[in-house]
């Protein structure tokens, strides 16, 4: 039995890195001219020359970098400011409660919702239009603005809740609550005290999630296609267009561009890392200077307003989608549709059964595999604490899928699974999902798992229980809440996967998301509304179960109500 635990980290790394390397190879080779299927038989730099001749390439790269960096910096700032200003208050608890519904909204659905909010013909403008009696929307650019600010807003709205969730996981391990109290009793203002004492302790733990946000934001495709400018578009969107070009020779150039995209992400992470070192150096001086900063009313208000806007955008956006899904004809500038109709819902519902089953089976299988592997890795790490360095070894490799732009290895991954003869099977789709699901499950569970008081394990062992019995009867029950939360996060990630499901599954497994994306191509807001709502419901059910099960299971155990 310990043998299987022993192999868990290795197996996990192989399952993560194997497909990635194969996928990456499938991108690197065509970038340098090798793709015999399309007649590319020898090394050449033609793809690179074609790429650099593309008009506006530098603008695309710059756009990807600036929007990614800005979105990450703002998301990080908002979450830190909000936690600093409000940890331990009712507002903080309230935010924790609306977290699940916000996390459940898929990125693309949130982007559609936000687009409808901020477009010149959207809800916000309609408020003024109704007051001012305008009958046509202003001819101004809000969505798809040249600076990519709409894209930044859309990303921030979705990344703030994610980083908030990660911070919530990190706070207990860093003893955030008590540290904060000490700072308060030393006369520090809430915010300044938190930044000087808690932030340095939790930052190492939320660093990886921040990198993941940075990598995602700089290479996002679906959100960018809705909110980003198109003249030119960010690099990742253009890569997708080149990959979709009827002229198949463009695929060589797209592969080269995918490597550039990878370079952009690596560069941004390096930049952030360098900046972080700089801040750490000056921050220490700032902390030791002893400034108390007790007049902080406006800063706290800013934290609350920023968090409120981020949460409000997603919630209002999904509300907008819900309204669209039952709207009859809806004319500008009416705030609500003139007629209502459930006709389209009734037409779609009967066909949804298979979609839902496929989504749940694929997501369920991927998340079960992921949680088994993750728990096994973490359990092994804890068991071995006595005999080996508590180092995490090569396990950092499992975060690589988070940092690599999906688009840079999807084609190679497809070839890889086809080569194995596994393409089109449920197993391959599940394995492909696993590549994206597992890192998030690990990210969600690692902190709470490592934060569990090791003396519980020691006590149980010294009572004569075997390590396996200790795991099943003590460790796992104590971690019920974070384990279920990690499962819910993983499931939500799986539900949102489009390209891996379609390409690796060869279209054999229609899910809510594959159908939603296909129908979104028809641009009918009512259909987008219906599928956006449906895509949100499944993860929401997941988060709901993750909250309800421990509440029911431990309804008579007061000591289990708070995370330990």
């Amino acid at each position, binding site marked *: 039995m310990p043998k299987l635990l022993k192999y868990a980290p290795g197996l996990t790394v192989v399952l993560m890195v194997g497909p990635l390397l194969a996928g990456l190879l499938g991108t690197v080779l065509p970038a340098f001219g090798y793709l015999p299927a399309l007649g590319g038989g020898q090394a050449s730099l033609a793809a690179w020359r074609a790429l650099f001749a593309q008009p506006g390439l530098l603008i695309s790269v710059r756009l990807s970098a600036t929007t990614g960096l800005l979105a990450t910096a703002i998301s990080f700032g908002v979450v830190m400011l909000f936690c600093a200003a409000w940890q331990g208050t009712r507002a903080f608890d309230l935010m924790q409660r609306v977290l699940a519904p916000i996390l459940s909204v898929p990125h693309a659905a949130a982007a559609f919702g936000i687009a409808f909010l901020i477009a010149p013909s959207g809800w916000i403008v309609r408020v003024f239009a109704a007051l001012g009696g305008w009958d046509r929307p202003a001819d101004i650019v809000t969505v798809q603005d040249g600076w990519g600010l709409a894209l930044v807003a859309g990303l921030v709205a979705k990344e703030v809740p994610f980083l908030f969730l990660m911070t919530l996981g990190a706070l207990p391990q860093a003893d955030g609550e008590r540290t904060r109290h000490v700072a308060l009793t030393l006369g520090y203002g809430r915010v300044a005290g938190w930044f000087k004492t808690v932030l340095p302790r939790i930052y190492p733990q939320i660093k990886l999630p921040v990198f993941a946000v940075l990598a995602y934001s700089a290479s996002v495709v679906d959100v960018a296609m809705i909110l980003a400018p198109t*003249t030119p578009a960010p690099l990742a969107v253009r890569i997708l267009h080149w990959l979709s070009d*009827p002229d198949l020779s463009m695929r060589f150039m797209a592969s080269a561009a995918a490597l550039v995209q990878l370079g952009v992400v690596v560069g941004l992470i390096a930049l952030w890392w360098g900046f972080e070192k700089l801040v750490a150096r000056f921050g220490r001086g700032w902390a030791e200077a002893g400034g108390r900063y007790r007049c902080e009313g406006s800063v706290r208000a800013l934290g609350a307003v920023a968090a409120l806007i981020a949460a409000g955008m997603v919630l209002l956006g999904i509300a907008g989608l819900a309204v669209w899904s039952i709207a009859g004809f809806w004319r500008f500038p009416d705030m609500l549709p003139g007629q209502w109709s459930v006709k389209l819902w009734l037409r779609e519902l009967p066909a949804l059964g298979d979609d839902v089953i496929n989504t749940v089976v694929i997501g369920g299988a991927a998340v079960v595999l992921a949680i088994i592997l993750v728990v096994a890795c973490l359990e092994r790490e804890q068991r071995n604490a006595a005999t080996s360095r508590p180092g995490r070894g090569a396990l950092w490799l499992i975060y690589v899928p988070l940092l690599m732009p999906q688009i840079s290895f999807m084609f190679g991954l497809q070839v890889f699974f086809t080569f194995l*003869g596994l*393409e089109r099977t449920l*197993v391959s789709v599940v394995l492909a999902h696993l590549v994206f699901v597992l890192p998030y499950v690990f990210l969600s569970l690692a902190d709470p798992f490592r934060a569990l008081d090791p003396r519980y394990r020691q006590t149980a062992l010294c009572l004569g229980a075997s390590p396996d019995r200790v795991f099943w009867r003590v460790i796992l029950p104590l971690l019920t809440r974070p384990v279920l939360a990690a499962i819910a996060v993983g499931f939500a990630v799986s539900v949102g996967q489009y390209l891996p499901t379609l390409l690796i599954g*060869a279209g054999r497994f229609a899910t809510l998301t594959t*159908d939603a994306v296909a*129908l979104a191509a028809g641009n009918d807001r009512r259909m987008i509304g219906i599928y956006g709502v449906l895509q949100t419901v499944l993860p929401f059910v997941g988060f709901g179960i993750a909250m309800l099960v421990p509440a029911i299971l431990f309804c008579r155990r007061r000591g289990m109500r708070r995370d330990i």
Partner: protein
Amino acid sequence: MPRLTARLMAAAIFGASLMGFSSLASADPAPDMQNWDAVLKQAKGQTVYWYAWGGEPRINDYIAWAGNQMQEKYGVTVKQVKLADTADAVSKVVSEKAAGVADGGAVDMIWINGENFAAMKRNGLLFGPWVEQTPHFKYVDVIGKPTTINDFTVPTAGLEAPWGMAQLSFFDDTSRVKTPPRSAQALLAWLQTHPGRFTYPQPPDYMGSSFLKQVLTEVVDDPAVLQKPAGDADAQKVLAPLWTYLAKMQPLLWRDGNAYPANGAALRAMMADNEIDIGFSFSAAEVSAAIANFELPDSVRSFVFDGGTLGNTSFVAIPFNASAKAGAVVLADFLMSPQAQLRKQDPKIWGSFTVLDMDKIPPADREKFDALDLGVATLSPADMGKVLPEPHPSWMELVEREWQKRYGVAP
């Protein structure tokens, strides 16, 4: 827990091997097109995975209907793989070729035309020729509708079967536009008095490129040169009138030409939001359907240009490594049958015009075509006016590349 891990692992590995083996579908021999009965026999029991754009519920429903008919008539199961972009199907076939899958591929049939077809044909990714040997091909109007055998001027060479006609038509909100402009020049003049009230999807989107081709066909000195590959003429000189036209139009577009809708379907939503007054599409029936689905106000009507508008044909093709070639051939043949074509032309179902010749099909079927009610906002085939031929794909590539240089990067 390791015990459970062990069990799950074993189950996963077992499952993997099981499904892995089952996915290695036995190679399907190319159907003998000289013997239709043999084709039917071979097709029976096959499952055809049809990769088709899935953005329109009406079309998905039509495909589902065709699937049911195939099951009843020929024992062939049809499964639509709904795509957001036909390129994903092409990508699938390319990746299989890269992995050396010469048989038992994932894609059995693709809804395709134009540049995608040209590229797959050029790279040897298609099965065939097979189209002309199918029983219903004899009803196809290859004379009156030459685009059924010349896809964007590229000869289909029996590699793809026609299954629907498309013609560019415009639509306007009659409550806002009194007299719609009926030519490219008239549209430009109208835009000067209504700045910001028209736009086109950003090329290389299919609809956006089609609009540019429409303008090109109208403003070019000699439309005949567009039927030949671009290299054969002095391309820059031929295209010059288009750039002159666009230079005038660009500052008058919606958002001053700094932003564009993503695709043709987006034009409908913009119309409903009162962002624009005139839109266009490749399916005149789309407007009636959109009104019925509350997407457009019921004051919207279709119109065409007096000098004619671009027309083309939609096709279905079979990849070189398809697993169910016979089944796909039978499906393609069924799609060309009067029964399937009639249903397709019915605006209540889809509203896509038939590829068949009314003089060739049995009179009983012809009467049914004549009896179709086309809906308030749909022009009858007779009112659609002259069909202009699509330029050779090489022109499109030139136009798209040059457009990207001039307008793809906002100043």
